[in-house]
């Protein structure tokens, strides 16, 4: 958390050049469901990505997905497919696209879009049940997406 915050400050404090390296949710470009470039302009960290993957208040990917590599995270769900071998099946860009907005790769999927800020029906203010105002903050930050993608890239069989 703290790290993200400081990183954010650093970006605004630095030159516009650095800030431009971060792609805002509304500017993301998909090609066949994939996103070619890093969203944060920085490489992801797989250890941090694991936290995003397993923490309810972050990605909570484990709510729907199991994987042998993540077997130490308790109570994986079965709503989504097991993710073993996703790094063999998908490229880095495709994984980034799936995490940012899976509905582009998988039409109508139940998987939430983690880097999207508007176009919702009755958007709420996180989990309060109160109304939220679009654009909402994306569920995951650009760096958290990169981190979880870096983690997914370790899912090899």
């Amino acid at each position, binding site marked *: 958390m703290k790290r993200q915050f400081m990183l954010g400050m650093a970006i605004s404090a630095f030159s516009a050049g650095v800030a431009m390296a971060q792609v805002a949710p509304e500017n993301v470009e998909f090609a066949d469901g994939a996103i070619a470039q890093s969203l944060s302009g920085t490489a992801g960290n797989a250890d941090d990505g694991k936290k995003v993957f397993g923490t*309810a208040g972050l990605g*909570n990917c*484990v*709510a*729907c997905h*199991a994987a042998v590599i993540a*077997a*130490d995270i*308790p*109570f*994986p*769900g*079965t*709503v989504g497919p097991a993710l073993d071998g996703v790094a063999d099946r998908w490229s880095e860009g495709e994984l980034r696209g799936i995490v940012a907005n899976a*509905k582009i790769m998988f039409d109508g999927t*139940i998987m*939430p*879009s983690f880097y*999207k800020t508007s176009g*919702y*029906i*009755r*958007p*709420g*203010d*996180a*989990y*309060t*049940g*109160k*109304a*939220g105002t679009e654009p*909402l903050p994306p*569920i995951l930050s650009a760096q958290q997406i990169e981190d979880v993608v870096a983690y997914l890239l370790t899912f090899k069989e």
Partner: protein
Amino acid sequence: MKQRTIKTALAATAVLGLAFAGMASAEPVDDTLVIDGVEIVTKAAGAAHLDGALPEAMSGWHFRDTETRAMQADDFDNPGMIYVDRGLDLWNAVDGTEGKSCASCHEGPEAMAGLRAVTPRVDEKTGKVMNIESYVNDCRTTRMGAEAWGDKAVELTDMLALISFQSRGELMNVAIDGAAAPFYEKGKEIYYTRFGQLELSCASCHEDNYGNYIRSDHLSQGQTNGFPVYRLKDAKLTTPQGRFVGCVRDTRAETFKIGSDEFNALELYVASRGNGLAVEGVSVRN
């Protein structure tokens, strides 16, 4: 330190066990609910009006673990039964400016037998969707000169428990035609709308994924025949609409209010998805 390690180790084995059990038996448990020697219908052919969306209707009871199911099968172990007794005290208690209790007009609570199985329903006179909570508050305000109980007031859930209990075992048979038709349609639309930042509808979880686990929760069909539900996690009773609030909130959406037109229509629709399942009286869930 030491103790913690042991606990963690235990937890780890439990988790592994569960993960395997979860994968192998994501199916609802094949079991029969018998209370006091009487079998309660917890499975029924999917209602025809659902056009096959639910091949079989199943009570949430089938999706709970062995201990929770056993607790509901024995009225002495069912913590919800205490509230039925409390409801009876309220039934007989005079309240309001008219000096009346429920018993003054209805005599015993048995007079309410059958009501739970056919509600929510559309009131002929007002054209409004009425569930038991709204009937109770209507009596309080228009006939007793008492104040309406709040949406989450324990008095209201106690009374719901008492009245639902009178219909235990009766099969849900909520009307969807005639005056109910427009509310059915509205409820259905809400049921399939993907709300909130997670863009999930009721159907995403309770039609497309019942039997699956979402984290440690074994997803049921989200049926309402068991309500009020005693939730072990909250140690209190919950109404159907109280549950809806939590489910909508979990989609990162702005919830609807209890008693709103939207939730009334949704409750009617969801109840109709369980037509053929028995009223459980007061059920136990985690």
